[in-house]
């Protein structure tokens, strides 16, 4: 079932349409409906009339194949990290990661836990961090606006960083995931 081919290094050859592409990408962010940790509960209000994320063109997609953004919503256990890697690598390029809460930045209140990771950026490339424990929906929307700004400026390039430094990320992932049984790349 697996394709074991390592992805090619990204080549920057889309100069003609780049501005238009970035504008479209920024205004049509589709999120993988996947929650880790306690922050997932803060994402539900974004659908509601009070916060209404659809006005920014943000929508939930039930499958990683069709989405652009993966939200790591809070503490990430080692067991979940394995699933996050699989989901992240299945998303088609360009893809972005929004990390919520102190736990993704420095471990937060779980900084000395035996089974959660402390710095998310060592394992998958984060584009925008939103701090807080937990960040309220307003803060999440603020994080989205920052992500949209970065995409428009062409600075949200975590997906390129991941492909370019795949050995570095794989090394860190293998160090922490003991029962490593993932293929070279999860297509």
């Amino acid at each position, binding site marked *: 079932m697996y394709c074991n081919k390592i992805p090619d290094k990204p080549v920057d050859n889309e100069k003609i349409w780049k501005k238009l592409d970035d504008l*479209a990408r920024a205004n049509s962010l589709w999120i993988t409906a996947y929650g880790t940790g306690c922050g997932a509960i803060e994402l539900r209000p974004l659908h509601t009339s009070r916060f209404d994320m659809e006005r920014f063109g943000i929508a939930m997609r*039930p499958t990683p*194949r069709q989405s652009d953004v993966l939200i790591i919503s809070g503490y990430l256990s080692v067991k979940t990290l394995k699933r996050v890697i699989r989901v992240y690598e299945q998303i088609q390029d360009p893809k972005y990661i929004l990390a919520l809460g102190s736990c993704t930045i420095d471990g937060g209140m779980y900084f000395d836990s035996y089974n959660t990771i402390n710095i998310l950026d060592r394992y998958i490339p984060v584009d925008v961090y939103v701090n807080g424990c937990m960040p309220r929906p307003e803060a999440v929307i603020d994080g989205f606006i920052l992500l949209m700004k970065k995409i428009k400026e062409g600075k949200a390039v975590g997906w390129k960083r991941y492909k370019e430094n795949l050995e570095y990320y794989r090394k860190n992932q293998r160090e922490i995931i003991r029962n490593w049984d993932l293929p070279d790349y999860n297509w």
Partner: protein
Amino acid sequence: MTRLLVSVILTSLGALVYGLLLGGVSRVITASIHGRIGPRLTQNFIDLWKLFRKESSIHHGTMFWMAPMFRLTGGIGVLLLVPIIAGNSVLTNMSFSGDLLLVLYFMFFGCLGMALGAGDSGHPYAVVAVSRGLLQMSAYELSFSAAVLVLALGLGTFSIENIVSAQQGGILNWNVFRFPFATAAALITFLPMNMTYPFNIVLAPQEIPIGPPTEYSSRFLSFMFSGRAIFGVAKLILFVNLFFGGAGSWSSLLIKTFLLYMYPLFVSPVFPRFRTEQSVRFLWFVPTSLVAVDLLRVIL
């Protein structure tokens, strides 16, 4: 030949733009019903461009590649076989070369192609959705075909152009007044055809993540979106031609198709989804009984 080709391309592009705009309007109206601001009117165009320019690095076989093309071809095929504006020589396209039976066949061409492609993707949810979709299709096809049969028997023709011309000369000549039960049945089947609530058991995001297109991404998905938009417009025009007197001018075409498009919006935001067996039971019983009244009236 060149004229036909230009007409075909322009009709397809026009239907795509109109279909995406109608989709945008429906999203804005649904948001107002929820008390939200909602997306931009042009959100569907932005989504389509983004999907078209995203990388597609996965595929699952030949049929997986071909399914979005089948979907697009099905949509364009129906559009071209239906006269868009009655009496307009440019926009009749290829409506002379096929009658209602061919259109009925073509309407399910895209769905069947999609079913094969989704099966090729190998995703279990896609396969569940395909089996649900084919079951529901067999349920609503019965009453829709019977409604079409009522028109054909009542007016003595299978040609869409003749059906349109038989409805001219006053609003009471429209088939919606001549055959009210068959029209009601056809309008009920319009909901599962468009996969709207309460009949959206195929694309049921909370149950079987998005159904057949689960594995489809990027460019594949953009083609499927385009196909769906064009097919949606083709169905609207077909329904206007069959039951609402056809369209004699651009303005009447736009008004009639827009009003017809609005109708599922009054149903879908307030109804929860049927279960598969409820949907099939409803479609086998309610619209079929309705159409039977008109069928008996026409035969006797």
